[in-house]
C-alpha cells in the first residue's frame, strides 16, 4: 500500500480493499473469479466421482434402483428443486445490486437467499427423518437401527435384491449428504456476506466476495439440477408408488 501511494500513476485507483500484489481493482476482481472457477472445476471432479459410482451401480442394478427411487418423495424433491433455483435467482440479483451499489436491496436479496437455503435444508431434514422412520438408513450408520426396508412397500422387481436397494440408499445419502454439506457451507458464507453488506463493504468498485460466493451457490444449484432427475425420477415411468 505504501508503495502504491508514492506511485503517482496508480494513486487515483487506490482502493482500501486493493491487495498490494495487484495493480488495480479490475485485475484483483478477475483473479478472484479465476481462482473460484478453478476451485469449482475441482469440485466438479469431486462430485463427478459420486456421479460415476451412481452410473455404474445403476447400470448393474437397474430394477432395484428404479424401485428404490420410486420410494423417494417426489413432491419434496421437486419442491426443493424450485426452492434452490429460486435461490439462484435471488443470489444473482444480490450480485446485481452489489455491482450497482444498492446496499439495501443487496442485503434484502442475500437474506432471501439465506432463507431459501435454510428452507432447502429443512425439507432435506424432513426427508432424512422419513428415511430413518422407514429404516432406510443404509448399513449400520445409526447404531441399533440397521437398514431394514418394508418389502411390501418397496415392490421389489424380479432379480432385484435388498442389498441392491441398499446400494441405492448408500449412494443417495452420499450424494445428497455431500450436497447438503455444501449448502450448509453456502448458508454460512451468505450469513457472513449479509454481515459485511450491512456495513456497506461491497460497492461497485469492490464486490468480489459477493460475486464469487454467487458462483459457488450457482454451482451447488447445478449439482442439484442433476441429482433431482437421477435420484427421484429414474423409475417413475415404470409405475409403482
Amino acid at each position, binding site marked *: 500500500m505504501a508503495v502504491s501511494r508514492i506511485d503517482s500513476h496508480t494513486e487515483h485507483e487506490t482502493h482500501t480493499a486493493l491487495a498490494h500484489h495487484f495493480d488495480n481493482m479490475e485485475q484483483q476482481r478477475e483473479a478472484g473469479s479465476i481462482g473460484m472457477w478453478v476451485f469449482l*472445476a475441482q469440485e466438479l471432479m469431486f462430485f463427478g466421482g459420486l456421479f460415476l459410482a451412481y452410473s455404474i451401480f445403476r447400470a*448393474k442394478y437397474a430394477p432395484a434402483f428404479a424401485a428404490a427411487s420410486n420410494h423417494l418423495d417426489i413432491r419434496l424433491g421437486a419442491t426443493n428443486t424450485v426452492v434452490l*433455483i429460486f435461490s*439462484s*435467482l435471488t443470489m444473482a440479483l444480490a450480485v*446485481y445490486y452489489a455491482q450497482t451499489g444498492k446496499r439495501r436491496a443487496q442485503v434484502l436479496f442475500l437474506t432471501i437467499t439465506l432463507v431459501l437455503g435454510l428452507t432447502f435444508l429443512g425439507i432435506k431434514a424432513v426427508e432424512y427423518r422419513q428415511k430413518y422412520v422407514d429404516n432406510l438408513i443404509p448399513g449400520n450408520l445409526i447404531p441399533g437401527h440397521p437398514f431394514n426396508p418394508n418389502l411390501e412397500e418397496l415392490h421389489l422387481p424380479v432379480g432385484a435384491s435388498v442389498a441392491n436397494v441398499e446400494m441405492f440408499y448408500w449412494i443417495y445419502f452420499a450424494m445428497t449428504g455431500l450436497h447438503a454439506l455444501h449448502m450448509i457451507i453456502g448458508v454460512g458464507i451468505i450469513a457472513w456476506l449479509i454481515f459485511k453488506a450491512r456495513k456497506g463493504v461491497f460497492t461497485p468498485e469492490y464486490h468480489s466476495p459477493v460475486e464469487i460466493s454467487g458462483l459457488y451457490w450457482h454451482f451447488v*444449484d*447445478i449439482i442439484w*439440477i442433476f441429482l433431482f432427475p437421477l435420484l427421484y425420477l429414474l423409475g417413475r415411468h415404470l409405475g409403482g408408488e
Partner: protein
Amino acid sequence: MSEHIVQRKVYFVIFGLLMVFTLLTVLAAFKDLDNIFHGANTVLALTIAVIKATLVTLYFMHVRYSSRLIWVIVIAGIFWLGIMFVLTISDYMTRPSGLTP
C-alpha cells in the same frame, strides 16, 4: 472497468426457462418412453438437466460475458470429467463381470 453487468430482465427470463424445464422433466418422467428406445427416459432427463445447467452457467454465473480464460477453465473441467467417465465405463464394459447384472 470491463465488468459486464447483466440486466435483471435476463435473470427473470432465465429463471422462467428453468422453471419450465423443471416442470417438463417431472412430466416427462411419468411418461413411458421405452417404446422409442430403451432408456429414452434417462436420455431425455439428462438432456433437460444439461440444458438447465448450461443456462445457469452462461447467465447466472456470467460465463457468457467472461474472459476466454474462464471459458478454458469451464471447458477443461467438463472435459476431464468426460475422461473420468469414458475411461472408467469402458473399463467396466470390457470385463467379464461387465456393467450388466
